[in-house]
């Protein structure tokens, strides 16, 4: 469902895609997993704006794909149009991931905690789950291999952003602080983009910190919607930047003309 952003000439899905896009850079080498409409739109948009050399492997397979439209699956061949390489999971992909030749990946967990760890396995105890979720898939892998991790959620509420995960399917900053470093893992989560705000991670404890508020949202609302204590930055909290007309035009007409991204809402 498309929700207008108060005061901005765009909707929430568009704001999130643009925020994601702007976090990308010209040396981003990304790929995507299942149900990743926001990141997929973000990669495609960044490549059309400030990051022309950005690498995006659609479905982790189709390098430099430029599909006419996005279908109902972000792991589907409908996404592969225009690719200059169809790489192959076992032969190419895993080595590129392990060696951080791909440097960027985005997760969305059914639960996420303050350090950006994610759960997509079970709600409730593992052996007697209240809800059996799909499973972590590549989260446990890519969380350890890829240095630039991005998180997103279109359901910013206390059920999603929890103090304690029921199961840690994928590692973000782990227990926080230097935990990743102690495990020998590169980088870590950079941002978490939600339907209320953008979080970054404060550099010492590696907990989510409010980086910008979407128009009409207050810091108090974010805290109320979050199951853990949100780190507040020094000074005023900026508003999430407004998409430019050109960004919106590209998103609406070229990147995702069928609004596949609304499947996340």
């Amino acid at each position, binding site marked *: 469902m498309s929700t207008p952003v108060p005061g901005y000439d765009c909707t929430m899905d568009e704001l999130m895609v643009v925020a994601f896009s702007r976090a990308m850079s010209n040396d981003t080498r990304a790929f995507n997993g*299942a*149900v990743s*409409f926001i990141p997929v739109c973000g990669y495609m948009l960044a490549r059309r704006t400030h990051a022309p050399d950005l690498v995006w492997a659609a479905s982790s*397979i189709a390098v430099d794909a430029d599909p006419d439209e996005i*279908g*109902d*699956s*972000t*792991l*589907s*061949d*409908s996404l592969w149009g225009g690719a200059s390489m*169809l790489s*192959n*999971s*076992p032969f190419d992909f*895993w080595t590129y991931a*392990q060696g951080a030749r791909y440097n960027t990946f985005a997760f969305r967990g059914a639960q996420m905690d303050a350090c950006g760890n994610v759960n*997509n*396995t079970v709600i409730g105890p*593992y052996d*007697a*789950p*209240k*809800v*059996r*979720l*799909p*499973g*972590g*898939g*590549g*989260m*446990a*892998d890519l*969380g*350890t*291999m890829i240095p630039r991790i991005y998180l997103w959620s279109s359901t910013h509420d206390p059920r999603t952003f929890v103090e304690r*995960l029921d*199961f*840690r*399917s*994928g*590692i973000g900053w*782990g227990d926080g602080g230097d*935990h*990743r470093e102690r*495990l*020998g*893992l590169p980088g870590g989560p950079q941002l978490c983009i939600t339907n209320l705000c953008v979080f970054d991670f404060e550099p010492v404890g590696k907990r989510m910190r409010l980086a910008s508020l979407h128009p009409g949202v207050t810091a108090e609302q974010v805290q109320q919607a979050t199951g853990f204590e949100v780190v507040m930055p020094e000074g005023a909290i900026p508003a999430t930047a407004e998409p430019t007309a050109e960004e919106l035009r590209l998103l609406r007409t070229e990147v995702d003309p069928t609004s596949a991204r609304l*499947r996340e809402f």
Partner: protein
Amino acid sequence: MSKVTTLEQAAAQVPDGATVAIGGLSMNSAPMALVRELVRQEKKDLTLVAIVAGMAVDWLVAGRCVRRVLSGLVSFEGLGLAPNFRAGVQSGRVAVEEYSEHLLICRLQAQSSNLPFMPTKAGLGTDVLGLHTASGAVREERDAPSGERYVACTRLPVDVALVHAHEADERGNARVNPKLVWMDNEIVNAAARTVASVERVAATEAFTAEPERTTYPRFMIDAVAPAPLGAYPCSSFPDYSHDSEFFTAYSQAARDRGEFTQFFRERVVGPETWEDFLDANNAATGASA
């Protein structure tokens, strides 16, 4: 001695209690015709190895064929959770051995490469490793000289791998067009036997004419079962895409026990032959949608 057989005979060779690895990835290239036949033959107590799966696992769980699932992910992606898998696990009827994609791949590689383990960094710092402490299937280790941490993934023996390919000849040479094998070669390499369903049987000359396109040599494939649209309702790139309508209707039906029983009978296990099944689902139309 042609390796070409029927879906029925190929499935009949899978014994109850076997460890069966299912090819494909999510909604792509799953060996659905073979899976349907396993359900029709009422297999029992199977252990499934499914790196990233969905409908295939759900059919087998719905058919009460499954005791245990080793998987990275089972879902219908944006089209929802896999309803029977979810219910089966929540009720305790089906056990899940939770891995991640790369942990499973590494266990399969240890098996196929005849090594005590394959190392990876996958899983470090997650709760996945703790699930396997008792069995030792994967374990966290520290490399003594460097102090570096890694995860040792032990061998995973597989009785039968089921994969879908585009073409095979009578000798068992098989190929996937254009060259995408998802992670199927990992399960084929680890399995004692491999059965391939294929869109069509081709002459050996088709393989010798373009030998660089052969995906599996004949000594890796034990049986070839012709099944046009054999991955339906999943995709077989580049021939056909997944049929979203089937996934949606299936999920819809699964909200009610009686409705699902009827759906499963009429549109999955009831049709006598694979062709009947395709007709019952208007597959020729849906798959190209």
